[in-house]
């Protein structure tokens, strides 16, 4: 097969995104032997070792009354439709032509229904093996199979003899030992029919897999997987489902209840009772899905990681820049909103004599998560600026002569998805309604998400510096987590009315008490502006200073919030026109 490449070192593995499963899932990595219970019976390969003929290896070793004349490799079928005969490997073209003729000439004799043809002799490269013992009794089928197994890929001559008619002449055929799997792809030779390799096993391999557990199994098979994304369900740019709570929860591949909502059982013992029983596996093995990239696949397979890049690119670098500027404003705004919401929540120390036993833990969770998400948005703000800087440096936006860091928060949250009408920029305490807004903002395929998908696919274009695409992809992947976090928070806080909130009110911009905090915020913005002005690592000094000041600001905002004052951070920006709701 053409154009096969295999990643060798770590950077190659990280960079090359192989669609499908790893080579470790291929047949040649399987745990095959000739005893039941494993993945396939490799004796079945040798049934078709010789193109055009199918043998059965008959053993009498375990028979109570062995019939010696039934032992050996019995010809089961002449398969003149064998693909290897019709389209042989080039080096065996001549042999195949002669073999087709020989099979046709002997077709009647070999095909006679009463005839019992057995393999009597094999010759390869000048060595002949007679498949009878010294006393003339036939060798057992398993012994013959081992001898056949030892053949190399190359020319082979067989002698077939009838056991039911000693007087009948023997037939010699020249052919070659078949190559069972494609050398480069590992695909099984087309002459084998579905089920043929496992037909002699007493049970499906899933029996043993279930009993051994994944950790014991020697080759890669699915155990804990993501369920299939139904066809009618949307996909996020990075390839996950837009219903993450349904489809991004891992489930047991062997689960008996095949409904998506089936709760994954935790722990070995619990998992066992939720899995299909051996009997059930026999009945329903076809319900066990094929798994690619960790996800069960139903009817269609599309490499997930490529989908991110399939969004419609922006037409020009200038258009991309303008959308990135808009995204930077949004990242900035939501970072401030999440921060403000965080300071509106009581600290665990402020919870006293609570009737609600978990309130302390829950406010801790909410504050921690909000801070995490705010920091993540700040990081995105930096990355967007980095992308913008990279675009500027690459000099691909015509007429763009001066790079200005994007540090003005957006005046509005645009309508998209669950945000049905534009929402003016505002700082709100973490009420249930605010939380709804946050969920809507971070909603998969919402405004931010959708814009980044397009930015990502645009950045794949060859004129863009490659690392900008990586940065944009990182933001998209991050964003999908935010949505889940806010949903979790909703669940947790739904148990309360407002007892987790501080009595917080937004102070007037000219309130002297908030002036120092506003000053710190302004200083941070200046430092960030100086830092973003230089996108390379020489910006380290300014960014470090900004980071240090963020700790100062954190303390100031916290102290003020504890005394009921919210800092109007958005007041630093002159009111921008806001479209009416």
């Amino acid at each position, binding site marked *: 097969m053409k154009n096969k*490449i295999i990643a*060798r070192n770590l950077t190659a593995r990280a960079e090359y995104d192989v669609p499908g499963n790893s080579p470790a899932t291929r047949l040649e990595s399987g745990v095959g032997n000739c005893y039941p219970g494993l993945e396939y019976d490799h004796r079945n390969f040798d049934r078709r070792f010789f193109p055009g003929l199918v043998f059965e290896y008959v053993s009498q070793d375990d028979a109570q009354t062995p019939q010696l004349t039934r032992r050996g490799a019995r010809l089961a079928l002449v398969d003149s439709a064998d693909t290897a005969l019709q389209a042989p490997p080039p080096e065996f073209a001549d042999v195949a032509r002669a073999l087709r003729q020989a099979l046709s000439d002997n077709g009647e004799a070999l095909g006679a229904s009463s005839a019992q043809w057995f393999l009597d002799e094999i010759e390869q490269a000048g060595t002949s093996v007679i498949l009878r013992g010294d006393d003339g009794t036939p060798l057992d089928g398993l012994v013959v199979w081992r001898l056949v197994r030892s053949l190399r890929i190359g020319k082979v001559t067989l002698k077939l003899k009838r056991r039911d008619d000693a007087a009948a002449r023997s037939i010699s055929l020249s052919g070659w030992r078949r190559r069972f799997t494609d050398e480069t792809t590992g695909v099984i030779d087309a002459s084998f029919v579905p089920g043929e390799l496992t037909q002699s096993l007493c049970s499906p391999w899933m029996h043993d897999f279930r009993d051994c557990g994944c950790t014991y199994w020697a080759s890669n098979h699915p155990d804990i997987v993501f369920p299939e994304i139904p066809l009618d369900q949307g996909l996020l740019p990075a390839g996950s489902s837009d219903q993450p709570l349904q489809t991004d929860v891992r489930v047991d591949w062997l689960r008996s209840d095949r409904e998506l909502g089936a709760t994954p059982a935790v722990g070995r013992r619990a998992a066992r009772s939720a899995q299909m029983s051996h009997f059930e596996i026999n009945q329903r093995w076809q319900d066990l899905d094929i798994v690619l990239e960790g996800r069960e696949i139903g009817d269609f397979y599309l490499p997930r990681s490529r989908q991110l890049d399939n969004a419609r690119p922006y037409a020009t670098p200038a258009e991309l820049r303008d959308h990135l500027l808009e995204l930077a404003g949004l990242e900035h705004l939501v970072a401030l909103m999440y921060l403000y919401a965080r300071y509106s929540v009581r600290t665990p120390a402020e919870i006293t004599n609570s009737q609600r036993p978990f309130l302390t833990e829950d406010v801790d969770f909410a504050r921690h998560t909000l801070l995490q998400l705010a920091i993540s948005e700040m990081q995105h703000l930096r990355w967007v600026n980095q992308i913008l800087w990279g675009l500027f440096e690459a000099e691909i936006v015509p007429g763009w002569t001066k790079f200005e860091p994007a540090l003005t928060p957006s005046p509005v949250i645009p309508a998209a998805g669950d945000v049905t009408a534009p929402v003016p920029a505002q700082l709100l305490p973490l009420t249930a309604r605010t939380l709804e807004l946050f969920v809507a903002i971070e909603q998969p395929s919402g405004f931010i998400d959708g814009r980044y998908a397009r930015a990502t696919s645009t950045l794949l274009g060859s004129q863009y510096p490659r690392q900008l695409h990586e940065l944009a992809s990182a933001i998209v992947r991050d964003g999908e987590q935010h949505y889940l976090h806010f949903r979790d928070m909703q669940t947790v806080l739904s148990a309360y009315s407002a007892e987790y909130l501080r009595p917080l009110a937004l102070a007037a911009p000219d309130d002297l008490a908030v002036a120092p905090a506003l000053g710190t915020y302004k200083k941070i913005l200046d430092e960030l502006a100086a830092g973003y002005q230089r996108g390379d690592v020489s910006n380290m000094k300014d960014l470090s200073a900004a980071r240090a000041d963020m700790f100062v600001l954190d303390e100031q905002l916290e102290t003020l919030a504890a005394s009921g004052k919210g800092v109007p951070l958005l007041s630093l920006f002159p009111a921008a026109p806001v479209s009416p709701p």
Partner: protein
Amino acid sequence: MTALLRLPLYGAARAQPSPGTSSVPWFHLIPGEHPLVLLIQGSQLFEVDAELAAGLSVADDPATDTLRSLVALGPRKSSGPVPVSALSLNVAQSCNLACDYCYADEGRFAGAPRQMEQTVALAAIDRLFAEARSPRVTLGFIGGEPLVNRALVHRCVEHAARRARQTGIGVGFSITTNGTLVRPEDISMFREHEFTVTVSIDGDAAVHDRHRSRRGGGSSHDRVISALEPLLASAGRARVVARATVTRDDLRVSERVEALLGLGFAEAGVSPTRTGPRPELWLQSHDWWPFFESMKLAAEIDLNRVRSGAGERLRFSNLANALDSIHRGSARSLPCGAGRSYVSLGADGGYFTCHRTIDQRTFALGDVASGIDADKRASFLAARDVDGQEPCRTCWARYLCGGGCHAEVATAGRQGCDYIRAWLEFCLKTYDALLRERPELFWQPGGVS
């Protein structure tokens, strides 16, 4: 010498730019039973099928486009400055030996012998911790012979360990020593603080003493061995490695490496002489091929040790380090961390780009009082990015090699590039083969070595 003719250096079918054109290759094909393709920018290594390899060996074949469609090029590595995470202290610019090939003018760097003041050393350590942005820093002691100033080494280790506890930034220690002055209290310190102890030792006594004599003559080999014996016998948590200098009067490598491993060093590596006070010891252009053969032989011996099960790790450092770099896909636009993440402090308190450029004005980066000069660092690095160097700019091996030691390039130019390419190609093939035979070697903590 007939071996030269068998070198698999430039096959007829090689994607090399023709001289005089500006085309810069983006991949390098290594033909063989398992043809390999190295994507130059990100040092990604792929095996390709024979058909694709055949196409890639022909200029302008569509196979090149096919390859491009199958892979993503790694990001171009920045060569700009990063916060310093490694510092070496030239605690003593003097030495008790008088090795005739020494690049450091027997430790004095063309000045008077002198020692570093404690205030200078401690201030530099404080600065290292204050400006570090990494979870771990490295503090090295060099010279001259650092143990000439033993008391300061011990004081610095104590100080740095305290700073590490205070800041939560981890610290690793290293020392490069001739080994002759090592005392039991040093050994205790090496073990306790998990030092990497690099001993300059050239091989067995006969080889070693030819160039590494004591001041006033006499064997230094015996001294090294007797001083290091307890450490070699039981290194504890220290890692004791040997570095041999190869001079052109004796290009053997495996003999040196095997002798050193036999003495109990965990690892042994070699460096060819390219500069120094005695030009007759520098490797000349026709020396590189026999040297390459020596390197290969040493590598084969080491590989056989691992293959036969006699060793669990590679111990020939040049090979082990190269294979580790290839495995990680190291792609660098500079040869080392000098001036970028690493600086060296001279005895007088001046920063320099590395321990080899002490007291050279062109490599100076400010002093410990006013700090490392950011502009000088930036311009030093910008001037040395391998993509701006000739003939590196169009060489396939540029991101594996990085353009060669700054200090050596400054005095001797770029020598032995064909050797470096041959060695790297050998290592790439060896990596591929070893990954097939013993993949677990690459997944053990610490890599192959």
